[in-house]
């Protein structure tokens, strides 16, 4: 296992209401680690606390209790210096849900340059990073375009390039595919996979199960509690349990689970459609029932 990049130890978080009192905890006693180069999906229904979790990992929020360690820097509820915050944000980038709300400039390449400019890099270095980041997301041809003329998926790719230009070790995608059409979603997923192959740690927060199964590891959050942590196959083994969390399993896995309940002994994991077909055929042709 690679080095730990982000570690949460018994993290609790509750929002403050207008009077300054803490409301019911949005996150309760959460512990897990994100390792270098890992690809994790975090799933949970709306309001389960998964976005709060993302905001903690990027220091938009600080834990109310417990400890958060990011790249060796320990973070508790004590006030942080600006330098520490900047150091963490260089390491962990974040792509948000609404692409319109994260593009700053009126030209694509200027927007990608925004992060490196804040880091105080030289103009030559920024140019280099803008070029390579746009290449990485396949948006080089649009360098001179105005963001509002791009499609949702393209805007989101520009936002990813903007984060990449800061050379982080991990990117958190906070429901970054939720507002996109199927093509845009496919493009973003493909980009995530490519970044993962290049060694970037990816944390993808989503409620599309078909996207979550692309990850190496899935965390399930329900009402502020981390209820499951394992490979996609482990997590989706029991559709009934997943449904209890207000989620669903991919149709293929659902089908196989239903058949198993009826006593049909299909083996193997069936998260992807092709695996599902293969396992059902193996069962039917295997002669176990004839």
């Amino acid at each position, binding site marked *: 296992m690679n080095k730990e990049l982000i570690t949460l130890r018994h993290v609790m978080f509750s929002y403050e209401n207008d009077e300054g009192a803490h409301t019911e905890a949005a996150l309760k006693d959460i512990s897990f680690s994100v390792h270098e180069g890992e690809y994790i999906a975090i799933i949970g229904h709306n309001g389960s606390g998964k976005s709060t979790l993302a905001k903690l990992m990027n220091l938009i929020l600080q834990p109310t209790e417990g400890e958060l360690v990011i790249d060796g820097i320990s973070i508790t509820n004590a006030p942080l210096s600006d330098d520490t915050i900047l150091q963490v*944000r260089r390491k962990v980038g*974040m792509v948000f849900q609404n692409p319109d709300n994260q593009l700053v400039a009126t030209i694509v390449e*200027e927007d990608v340059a*925004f*992060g490196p400019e804040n*880091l*105080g890099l030289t103009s030559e270095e*920024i140019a280099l990073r803008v070029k390579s980041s746009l290449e990485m997301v396949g948006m080089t041809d649009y360098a001179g375009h105005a963001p509002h003329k791009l499609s949702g998926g393209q805007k989101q790719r520009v936002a990813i390039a903007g984060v990449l230009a800061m050379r982080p070790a991990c990117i958190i995608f906070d429901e970054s595919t939720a507002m996109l059409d199927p093509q845009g979603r496919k493009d973003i997923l493909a980009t995530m996979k490519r970044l993962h192959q290049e060694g970037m740690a990816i944390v993808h927060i989503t409620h599309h199960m078909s996207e979550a199964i692309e990850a190496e590891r899935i965390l399930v959050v329900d009402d502020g509690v981390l209820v499951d942590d394992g490979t996609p196959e482990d997590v989706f083994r029991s559709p009934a349990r997943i449904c209890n969390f207000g989620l669903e399993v991919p149709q293929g896995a659902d089908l196989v689970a239903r058949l198993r309940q009826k006593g049909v002994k299909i083996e193997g994991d069936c998260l992807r459609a092709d695996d599902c077909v293969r396992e059902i055929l193996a069962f039917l042709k295997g002669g176990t029932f004839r």
Partner: protein
Amino acid sequence: MISDITLGQFFPGESHLHKADPRTKIVGSIVYMAAIFCAKNVFAYLFMILFTAMLAMVGHIRIRLLWKSIKPLFFVLLIMSMINLFATKGTGEPLLSFWKITIYEEGIWRAVLVSVVRVVLLVMGSSLLLTYTTSPIQLTDGIETLLSPLKKIHVPVHEFAMMMTIALRFIPTLIEETDKIMKAQKARGADFSSGGLIKRAKALLPVLIPLFVSSFQHAMDLATAMECRCYHGGEGRTKYRILKFTGVDVWIGLALLVALAAVIVINKFLPIGNVM
């Protein structure tokens, strides 16, 4: 489509005028305006017309586009020239006199040159130098750099520039959103076009409130996103595009200064048809 009306009317291009440094163009347009205001006679105006045409050629901007920038001013020009025409008292015999109106030769010259040609040239020249050939972001950069000495007396120049950039960025988004909200409320039976002033103002509330709410949302989300990209104000921040003067700037700057000098010389040595 409504969102195509982007602010600034920038026409991207590769001409020398496009490549010039925005600072040159901002200062240059001031020089240009000075030259126009200095022009006192027909020849000086003729010279400036030729000079502006040359600028348009250098900037690859077609006359038709320039014409478009003038069109909305038609009535203003008409009224201004009327006032000049009737109010100018000449020294010679009146050309025409009826009822309470007298028209002198000077009146005609003033109407044509001072109100029409001068205003048209001012608008065309500044469009050519600034809005048509300079992208809004370059313009903001230019203004920020030009004003940066003011930072010493604690004028938040960087913050102003950043605000301008973000405003420019969000104008199309907000136009699109307004359009969408209006459609949604129309579908719920909102009527924006009938009734008196108060009724109409009231009918707009269901559009304005959601628009405010979403603007605040945009602002808050954007602030978070900017912070996540390590934004911490102008201090320690570098620039991707460093403004650099090149040969083009020398040429354009020289040309404008020569134009100003030429106008002064013409005023002095060709004092024919002085209108001022």
